[in-house]
């Protein structure tokens, strides 16, 4: 009895001294005074394993956060599982994360098909499913899927930026398109077509697709060149982008060459393709590329390089995918800090949907993150840039919202 009274008094004393803090400490499954559990899936094995490095980068960033004492004293436990880019396995792994590992939320799950497979499940259960690492438009649908929010600039919006650029600078362009035969490729094509409007049918003179199992895209480039196009819309992932850039140059085809953002990496795409062969490429950029010389003395880049060498030495700094992982991890940390001591799933989602003008150092100047309860698109702006043989020279205003 004495003991209980003592406890009560102690409690009262504590409550009177810091009432706000005590009242606000709220947790859902996956968070407590010392730990926050976050789940993710990435393809660490299989044909898409080139993206696995993004998950490793995220893990490395959270290691640094933990070394610095965590967030408000809570360590981050980041559980990233391999799904091999196979949707059935994603479902299984995500159920493991949610039901067995009891994560507070999911962040940075990669790929449109894998995420499509878990879309309904996480929303039915009310698990925040944020920084979804693909650019499909469906990740920004707060009415029907309030628990899901994407990370990348959405592919269709980016396609729209290129469409506007073509309409402004080359209204009678004859466009040839090369795209990867999957959701990502088709979204980019749709964005361009929607942007061109009713002129699309007249302006687009040739389309060719490739499969990720194709050894080369040479044949496609030959076909596209033969169409007589003077504008080339290149929707390819790094290896194929490098092949295409080289082949276009080697065939003496000199179109207005628009390269999708996915493959703008100077170190892992343009250098292998040949920097001289990449001159004149146009892209829409939104983050800083590690090998672009213009950022050599940029403090943010210096910090990134130092961090990379210390926490992810086995990785390849040339790989621009790592920047994506870095940004996602920083975004997660930002949201968690905003959550304070209210680590409920509802609050995670609320904070995710209340990002205002967040300028992360590795994003291009002027490109800010903004979300709200009815705007679930995180990155909505980009700036056009032209490659001059050494670096991406940005031009024009920041486009989009």
């Amino acid at each position: 009895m004495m003991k209980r009274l003592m406890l009560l008094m102690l409690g009262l004393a504590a409550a009177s001294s810091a009432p706000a803090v005590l009242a606000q400490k709220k947790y859902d499954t996956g968070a407590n005074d010392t730990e926050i559990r976050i789940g993710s899936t990435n393809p660490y094995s299989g044909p898409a394993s080139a993206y696995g490095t993004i998950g490793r980068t995220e893990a490395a960033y959270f290691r640094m956060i933990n070394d610095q004492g965590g967030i408000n004293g809570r360590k981050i436990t980041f559980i990233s599982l391999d799904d091999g880019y196979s949707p059935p396995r994603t479902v299984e792994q995500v159920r493991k994360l949610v039901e067995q590992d009891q994560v507070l939320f999911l962040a940075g799950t990669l790929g449109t098909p894998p995420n499509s497979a878990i879309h309904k499940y996480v929303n039915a259960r009310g698990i925040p499913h944020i920084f979804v690492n693909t650019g499909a438009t469906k990740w920004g649908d707060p009415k029907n899927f309030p628990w899901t929010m994407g990370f990348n600039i959405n592919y269709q919006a980016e396609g729209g930026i290129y469409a506007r650029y073509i309409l402004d600078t080359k209204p009678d362009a004859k466009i040839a398109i090369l795209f990867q035969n999957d959701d990502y490729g088709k979204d980019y094509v749709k964005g361009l077509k929607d942007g061109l409007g009713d002129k699309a049918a007249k302006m687009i003179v040739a389309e060719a697709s490739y499969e990720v199992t194709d050894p080369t895209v040479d044949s496609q480039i030959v076909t596209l060149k033969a169409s007589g196009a003077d504008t080339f819309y290149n929707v390819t992932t790094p290896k194929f982008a490098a092949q295409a850039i080289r082949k276009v140059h080697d065939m003496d085809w000199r179109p207005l060459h628009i390269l999708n953002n996915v493959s703008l990496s100077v170190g892992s795409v343009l250098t292998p393709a040949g920097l001289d062969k990449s001159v004149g490429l146009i892209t829409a950029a939104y983050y800083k590329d590690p090998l672009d010389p213009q950022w050599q003395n940029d403090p943010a880049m210096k910090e990134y390089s130092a961090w990379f060498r210390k926490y992810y030495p086995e990785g390849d700094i040339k790989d621009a995918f790592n920047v994506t992982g870095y940004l996602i991890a920083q975004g997660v940390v930002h949201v968690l800090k905003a959550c304070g001591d209210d680590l409920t799933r509802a609050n995670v989602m609320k904070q995710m949907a209340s990002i205002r003008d967040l300028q992360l150092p590795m994003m291009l100047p002027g490109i800010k993150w903004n979300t709200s309860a009815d705007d679930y698109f995180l990155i909505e702006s980009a700036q056009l840039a032209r490659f001059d043989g050494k670096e991406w020279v940005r031009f024009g205003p920041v486009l989009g919202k």
Partner: protein
Amino acid sequence: MNPAAAPLPAAPIRYAGLSARTWKAIGLAALLCAAAALPFLVSSYRTFQFNLVLIYAIVLLGLNILTGYNGQISLGHGAFYAIGAYVAAILMDQFGWPYWATLPVAGAACFVFGFLFGLPALRLRGHYLALATFALAVAMPQILKYKHIEHWTGGVQGIVILKPQAPFGLGITPDQWLYLFTLAVLLVMFAIGWNLLRGRIGRALVAIRDHPVAAEAMGVPAALYKTLAFGVSALFTGVAGALGAVVVQFVAPDSFTALLSISFMIGIVIGGVASISGAFYGALFLQFVPNFADQISKAAPWAIYGVFLLAFVYLMPAGVAGFVRLAWMRMRGLRGRGETSPHRAGV
């Protein structure tokens, strides 16, 4: 020479007054009870996993009918699995069919498709057949993405399916219900498979595998049996594919890559070629070993998986089923009849 086809020694060895056959029946019944009770004992995530195990077991039984018993190697069963899954998904999504009604249609569609594929396959032998079926597996995702059938297949985006609820006001979760439903389907399929393989047809299939010319001389219509084996094998796989679609609630071309077909092949090797029980061991391997490998190493999970594959093939050359059989016989003090090798004629 699967466990079922290789009858126990005729001498009636009795334990506690019951014959070995009775003991076996009791064992099976106990196993079945345990399987039925499982979803009420483990978490719903585990239930989901074991549900997939059951589905893979149906596939592996189907593949074994063709490859194990009939000696036709297929590296393309992922394609039949995909067809079954898409048939179910399209019927549910576009025509509002209930999930259970899609199974017979999926099975029938795959039977027809498999039968038709079996006709040209008659002309191919050994490696040529293996690679031709592999071609089917490689082509499947591209076909599913094709733009002119996009309004059916959902193209690259795939089809999302609603999860069925438990009927009749049963107070169980959808996961538990689907598991039990799958278990029931599995029992039906295994009963069919067991009857097929133990009887005249099974003997004919094995005869064609081991002595094709002799079988034909004995009046076995080899061509018919071989195409039928293809059809039936595809039917099993198609039914499993439909179940897989319902359980995962999503189909997309990326779910059915050539790797899936190779996994199925691995499943029957690990489980035991030409063995009915092997289907379960193989299914357990397919379900759990990749995750286990992922837990060991994030840097190179496939390397760990490969090492597991090697270990299983070395340590259990006749598959887990063969290993269990041997251990069982040793335990009973019988001389194992040497290495059980169900394979002849290059299987």
